[in-house]
Every structure is written in structure tokens, then in C-alpha cells.
């Protein structure tokens, strides 16, 4: 017994600690740092894109390289920044929230992380091979992706790797949540963040293999003489889109449900009032997950679907507004008659509520098929999904970072700088993306390196906003660095109104979160 305990207490140091670690906190930290790194890599691509779009005419890049950048900006943000970011939160928090010592499958956990650096090395090195990275957009539509150079194959293989990493991580999360809860922690007592991740994990297991299969079919068409997506050989280019979006739409919810979870933790804390309508929140999340499987056609209203199919996808898409609305209403009702204070995490949560709702409402507009014919593939769509993914997913992670950073590091962050980060991000974000709605309505297609003169003014505003938005994130890194290095000691219960098991542990928490399971009443 003593030797077993000793093995558990063994802490390798230096590189070995990070390479071989099976500890959920170490792995969580690696995921978060990796995600932050990828956030800046993909963000720097966006800076080049916005610099090129500052003026009409070709300025600093060639059209083909511009397409490479749009592709990699999307792929790296989605698979490198947002998804690993949320997995980082899950690793750090799930065991602490459900009263477990660690994740259920620690070695698998290590492997899921360490696949990522290799996958992204492969993906990003496609820039340097003949023909460059694919210029297909992150959607990699056939037959354009059949035409692309060897970079496409590298991206396909890296997607295979990322899929393995995601599915393994998701299985680990499902097993942990279903098996490792402390006595008394029934499913309907779990914190919302745990619930949203449980549902997200099922989505991951369901759709990542679909993506892997789809890109493998592209690989076969490219090199092994199949014609899945080639009409001349009896295939169908639109089949690619059906398969891709059958993955793609649940993927959208994979990137937003954990954000809902984080917001559902933050708002009650700073309202000093329990989450309103917990049960309906759980059911709403599950409904959104279910609906996500039957709305994929709304990404492809212009491919020439029969009217009946267009109607089905229009109605099912509109239906998503109902459970999403329930969530927004519940959050607002949680704040209603609370005792509100506005520390940085709460600011981000309120920012999330307002701006995510703008993205949700423009999503409702996009669902209306006749109107979608006008919005489809214009900057209106670019505006829409950045309101959902940046002010939705990314800003929820920023809020979550400020919320739990004192718990993770044992130090309080600098509140003034945190607030500055929030306001700069919010102002520049809206300056960047709000004008894009109008660009789209006025007729500017997305994924173009050059545009007609009437779009100049709004593109300038968007570019200036984007540079500001990019720069503001450096402040975030600085605050994180400062907090990791030192600062005011954080108490166990960092926030006055915080509820949940993670706040019963010291800040920073012990290496093995709950050595003895707590009892939940």
C-alpha cells in the first residue's frame, strides 16, 4: 500500500513531467497553452487577410496564398484553438466538479493531447510544400479539393489525427462523468458545465468519424481512382457537402455547448443566485444536440435541393431557436433580482449573452430559405459565424479563464487589466464584425482577396477593428503570465457567490483533486 501511494506521489520534473504526465491538471494546462498558441497562429493569418482587404486591389499577397490563409485560419481556429481549448477546461474542471481524483483514463488522456502537436506540425507544414496549403476553405469542397496539391493530403492526414485525438478525449470524458462521480452526485445535480461537456462528448464520438470518412473519400478520389465526388465517374460533388455538413453542423455545437456550460457557471456566481431553470437548461442542451443532426442542409440551400428538402431544413433550423432561446431567457432570469457584481468573468458572460444572441438572431435570418439565397456565401455569413464563434465560444473561454485562473494558479489576476481586456476585445470585435453584416447584404461574397470599390469603407473599418482585436489579445497573455508568476493569494472559494465542489479545494488544488470522494447532499 505504501509503495502504491509513493508511486502516486512521484512528480517527475522538467520535460519528462509534461511528456509522460497522466495528471488531469497538467494535461489540462498543456491543452490550454496549446490552444492559446494556435489562437495566435490562426489569428495572425486573419491579420494578413484583413491587411490585404484593407484596400481594393492586390496588395501584399497573391490570390492563391490568400485562399491558403482563409483555409488555415478556419482549420486552425476550429481544430487548434477552440476545440482543444474546451478540452483543456474539461480536463482541469470535470474531476474537480464531480469529486473525482483524476480522469478515468489518464494514459489515453496523455495520448489524446500529444497527438495534437504532431497533427498541427503536419497541417501547418503544408504551407511549405509545392503548391502550398490547400486553398479550398476549411470546408474543403470537392472537386476543388481534388484539384489541390500535396498540401491537401497533409491536411487530410492531420484531420485523421485530430479526429483520433478528439474521439479519444471524448470517450475519456464520457467514462469519467458516468463512472467517477462522488457519492450523491446524481446526474441531475451535476454542474451545467459537466452536463454540456457530456453532451458535447457524445456529439464528438458521433461525428468526428464522419469527417474522417469524408476526407478519406477525397483522398481516394485524389489518388486511388475512385469517383465518389466526380459526376463523370458516377459520383456526386454534392454528396461531399452532405457528408461534410452532417459532421459540420454538430461540430458547430461542439464548439458552443461547452461555452454554454461555462456561462452557466459564471452568471449564477456573480448574480449570487442559483441558475434559473436548471432542468430546462439540461433538456434544452440535449434538444440542441439532437436537432444539430437534422439541420445540415441549411449550409447548402443553393445546391439545388428539391423544395421539400429545403422546407424540411428550414423548419428544423428555425426550431433550434426555441431551445437556444430558452437558454438565453434562463440566463437573464438568473440575473433578474440577483445581487450583481461585475468582475471580469461576469463582463465576459454578459458580453457573450448580448453578442452571441446577435449571432443567433442572424442565424435565424439565415434559416429563411428565400432570404438565404441572398445571404449565402456573403460576408453576412462571415459576420454571423464570428458572432457565434468569437463572441460566443472564444469569449466564453476568456471569461472562464478569468473565472478559474485564481483557482488554477492560486493567485488573483489583475482585475483592472482584465476589464481592459474585456472592453478592448468587445469594442474591437464589434468594429471588426458588425460592418460585415452590411458588406454581405450589399453584395460582397466571402473568401475573396479583392473587392469592388463600393465595399472599401466598411472593409477599412473591419480591418482597423481586426488589428485592434488582435493586439488586445496580447494583453490577455500578459495577464495570464502575470497571474501564473504571482499575485495576491487566492482563497479556496475565490468568488463570494461561487457554488460547486471545485471551490471546496485549495487554490491551487492538490495534485490529485479528491483523494477521498466528498459526499454531495
Amino acid at each position, binding site marked *: 500500500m505504501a509503495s502504491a501511494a509513493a508511486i502516486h506521489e512521484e512528480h517527475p520534473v522538467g520535460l519528462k513531467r509534461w511528456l509522460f504526465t497522466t495528471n488531469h491538471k497538467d494535461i489540462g494546462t498543456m491543452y490550454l497553452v496549446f490552444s492559446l498558441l494556435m489562437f495566435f497562429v490562426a489569428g495572425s493569418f486573419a491579420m494578413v487577410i484583413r491587411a490585404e482587404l484593407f484596400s481594393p486591389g492586390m496588395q501584399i499577397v497573391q490570390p492563391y496564398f490568400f485562399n491558403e490563409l482563409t483555409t488555415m485560419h478556419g482549420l486552425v481556429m476550429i481544430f487548434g484553438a477552440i476545440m482543444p481549448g474546451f478540452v483543456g477546461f474539461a480536463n482541469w474542471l470535470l474531476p474537480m466538479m464531480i469529486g473525482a481524483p483524476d480522469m478515468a483514463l489518464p494514459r489515453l488522456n496523455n495520448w489524446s493531447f500529444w497527438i495534437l502537436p504532431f497533427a498541427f506540425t503536419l497541417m501547418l507544414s503544408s504551407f511549405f510544400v509545392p503548391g502550398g496549403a490547400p486553398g479550398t476553405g476549411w470546408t474543403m469542397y470537392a472537386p476543388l479539393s481534388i484539384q489541390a496539391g500535396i498540401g491537401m493530403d497533409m491536411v487530410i492526414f492531420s484531420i485523421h489525427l485530430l479526429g483520433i485525438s478528439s474521439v479519444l478525449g471524448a470517450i475519456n470524458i464520457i467514462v469519467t462523468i458516468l463512472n467517477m462521480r462522488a457519492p450523491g452526485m446524481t446526474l441531475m445535480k451535476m454542474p451545467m458545465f459537466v452536463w454540456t461537456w457530456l453532451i458535447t462528448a457524445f456529439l464528438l464520438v458521433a461525428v468526428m468519424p464522419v469527417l474522417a470518412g469524408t476526407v478519406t473519400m477525397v483522398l481516394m478520389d485524389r489518388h486511388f481512382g475512385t469517383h465518389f465526388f466526380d459526376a463523370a465517374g458516377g459520383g456526386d460533388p454534392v454528396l461531399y457537402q452532405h457528408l461534410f455538413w452532417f459532421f459540420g453542423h454538430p461540430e458547430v455545437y461542439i464548439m458552443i455547448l461547452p461555452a454554454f456550460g461555462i456561462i452557466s457557471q459564471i452568471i449564477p456566481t456573480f448574480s449570487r443566485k442559483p441558475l434559473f431553470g436548471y432542468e430546462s437548461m439540461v433538456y434544452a442542451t440535449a434538444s440542441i444536440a439532437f436537432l444539430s443532426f437534422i439541420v445540415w442542409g441549411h449550409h447548402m440551400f443553393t445546391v439545388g435541393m428539391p423544395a421539400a428538402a*429545403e422546407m424540411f431544413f428550414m423548419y428544423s433550423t428555425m426550431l433550434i431557436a426555441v431551445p437556444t*432561446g430558452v437558454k438565453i431567457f434562463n440566463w437573464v432570469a438568473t440575473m433578474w433580482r440577483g445581487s450583481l457584481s461585475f468582475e471580469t468573468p461576469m463582463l465576459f458572460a454578459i458580453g457573450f449573452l448580448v453578442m452571441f444572441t446577435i449571432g443567433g438572431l442572424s442565424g435565424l435570418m439565415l434559416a429563411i430559405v428565400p432570404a438565404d439565397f441572398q445571404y449565402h456565401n456573403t460576408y453576412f455569413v462571415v459576420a454571423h459565424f464570428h458572432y457565434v464563434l468569437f463572441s460566443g465560444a472564444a469569449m466564453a473561454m476568456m471569461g472562464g479563464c478569468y473565472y478559474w485562473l485564481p483557482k488554477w494558479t492560486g493567485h488573483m489576476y489583475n482585475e483592472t487589466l482584465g476589464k481592459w481586456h474585456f472592453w478592448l476585445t468587445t469594442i474591437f470585435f464589434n468594429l471588426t464584425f458588425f460592418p460585415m453584416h452590411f458588406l454581405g447584404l450589399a453584395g460582397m461574397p466571402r473568401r475573396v482577396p479583392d473587392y469592388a470599390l463600393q465595399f472599401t469603407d466598411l472593409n477599412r473599418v473591419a480591418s482597423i477593428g481586426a488589428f485592434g482585436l488582435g493586439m488586445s489579445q496580447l494583453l490577455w497573455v500578459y495577464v495570464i503570465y502575470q497571474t501564473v508568476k504571482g499575485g495576491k493569494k487566492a482563497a479556496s472559494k475565490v468568488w463570494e457567490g461561487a457554488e460547486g465542489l471545485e471551490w471546496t479545494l485549495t487554490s491551487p488544488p492538490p495534485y490529485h483533486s479528491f483523494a477521498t470522494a466528498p459526499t454531495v447532499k
Partner: protein
Amino acid sequence: MSLSFMKKKPSRPLNVAWARFAAAMALLLGVGTASARVRWNFQTPVTPMAHQIFHLQDIMFGVCVVIFVLVFGVMFYSIFAHRKSKGHKPATFHQSTTVEIIWTAVPFLILVAIAVPATATLIKMENTSGSALTVRITGYQWKWHYTYPAQGIGFFSDLSTPVAQIENQEPKGKHYLLQVDHPLVLPVGEKIRFQITSKDVIHSWWVPSFGVKTDAIPGFINQTWTEIDVPGTYRGQCTELCGMGHAFMPIVVKAVSQKDFQKWVTAQKALMVASAAGSSKTWTEADLLSHGKTVFAANCAACHQITGQGIPGTFPPLSAGKKFSAAPAMLQQLRGRGFLTKDGRIVMGPVKNHLRIVLQGIPGTPMPSFAGQLNDADIAAVVTYERNSFGNHTGDVIEPSQVAAVR
């Protein structure tokens, strides 16, 4: 940067952009004026369907603004009134089935109310029957081809904005990137059916003022329709990422009266006869070179560049002696045709192979077949031009009859 921008456009300084942005914010809050719409909303609709879409968008926008104001009115009131710094004590309620049912049911009913007009419009949009004219639209990387099957007319429509404007060596014209050499000409006042397809990758044909956007998919024909109310020139763009030239394949439609349309049809038929004659006569070297330059700019320069220097790693240069490396498959194809030396330099291979490359394309590479796009005279001219430009001095003069022999 900003200084030169101010100088170039003194009538529109940056603060106008800001003022407009502020106006847009005002519009979002529902206090905008109708005049703000022209620039901030859809382009002016000129077909019944575009009008209906505009109307639907107005309804949707109104609904969204009302919901937004109501929900966040409540939230911001709470932020104002229920703050700890004012000493507000938290309530303890956290559940109400009645409220949950209300805010599930009410949005649902709103959605049903929106779905009714949306469905009605959609059904009309999908009805392509009863058209008086059919136009077949084919997407190519990176241009459009239009055919009028009943009239026997067909032509390509290429971007006509000079490369010098795109590369900022010349001031940009009013319709920068939205102008073509041969616009699509359509009559007003009758139902026109479009049959849309593609020769290579997926494109999408969009004219905002018509409310028509349909994907052009290789191997499939999509149908859609329009009926234009107002004569005029309408401009749109390809809206599906189709590779490097995606931003450079605009759509221009000239809507004219029925009478003018008939005149145009007659004139086009005469032009096609003249063009066919061009392929049977013998051309002088000077004529070939000057026509070849035009053909090259419209068809080849997107990839091989107007300078003929290509793009390293992707598109080969057309200058003998230039080094080129790319994917092994492409290099092998070039070597096999005699256009690449062992040490990786471009060389002008045999004329026959040159013609074959242009006519048939190179399978497995982005080089497309031009057999269906260019006539014998065009190909003779462009190959003559390529073999005597960009530092090449082969002195070869290729006549249309030689092209016909290889074709």
C-alpha cells in the same frame, strides 16, 4: 497609408465611413430612415422574387430587433437595478414551470408566423415552368459561358478589368472587378429560365438585384428563373470559392426591351458567322500576335500571369530557361511533352505538343482543356504569342489550319 488614401479620394474621407457606421447602428435600433437602406441593405430589387425576399428580410429584421430589445431591455434593467453595489439582496427563486412553458411556446408561435410567408415565397421561387426564354450558364475557372439554345448563340464572359488596375498600377475604374467583355443580355418582362452547370469545380451564379443565387455543379444542371421588371445593367459575382480566380469572375447582365433583345440576337448571329470565317483564313504574324495577346490576357493570365512568369510551385512560367519545380506529377507531364529539361528548366517544346496542351489540357493538373472555349484562330494566335513573347524567340507562326489538324 491613410494619407495616400485621403489624397486619392478627397470627397470621401474616413470620417464619412464612421458616420455611416453610426447610421447603421441607428438603423439596427430601428430609427433609421428609408434612404439609409440603399447602401446598407440589399441592392435594389428588380424582379418580383427579389422584392419578396426584400420583404421577408424586412419582417425577419424587425422580429429580430424587437426580440433583441425586449430580452436585453430586461437584462440591462437588471444590471442597472439589481446590483450588489447598490445593496440589492439576491432573491432565491430558481424555477417556474409556467414561465418556461411561456417562453418555449411564444417563440414557437413567432417562428410559425415567419415560416408561412417564407414557405409561400420559396414555392414560387422553385417554380421554373412557363418560361419564354432559356439560358444555359456554365461556370469555368474563372469565367462564365452563356448559351441561348433556341437562338443558337453562345459566348464567354470574361472579367474586363485590366490587370494593371488590380495590381494598383492604374487608378481603378467605377466598376472595378464588376465589368466583363461580353455581358449576358436578357429581355425584360418575360420569364427566363436558367440552366446552370459547371465544367470544373463548383461555382455559384449570383445577381443580387434578381434575388437569384444557384450553384453551378459539374455533372448536374440546376434550374432557376427570373423575370426582370426594369431595363438596366446588373452586376453580381461568383459566390462559391472556386480557386485562385474566385474574386475575378463577375457577372454582368444587360436587361433590355424585347425589341432590343431581338436586334441583339440578330447581331450576335452575324458575329458568330464572322468569327467562324476567321478560322478559315490565313493570318499575318502581326495580327496573330496582337489577337494572341488579347486571348492570353482573358484566358491564360489568371494562372500564368500577364507577365508569363507563372507562380512558383503551382503554375509554370512560359519563358524558356526559367526554373520550375512543382508536384512530381506535374513535372512528369511537362517533361513528357518536352516542355521541361532534365535540370528543371522550362523550354519551348514542339508546336504540336504545345497545341495539344492548350486543346486538351493536362490531366491531373489545373491546366484545363480549351478545345470547347477557343476557336482555331484564337488558339493559333495565343500559341504564336506565347512562343514569341516573355523572352521566347522561336519565330514560329501558327495558322488556324494547323490547329484544326491537331484538334
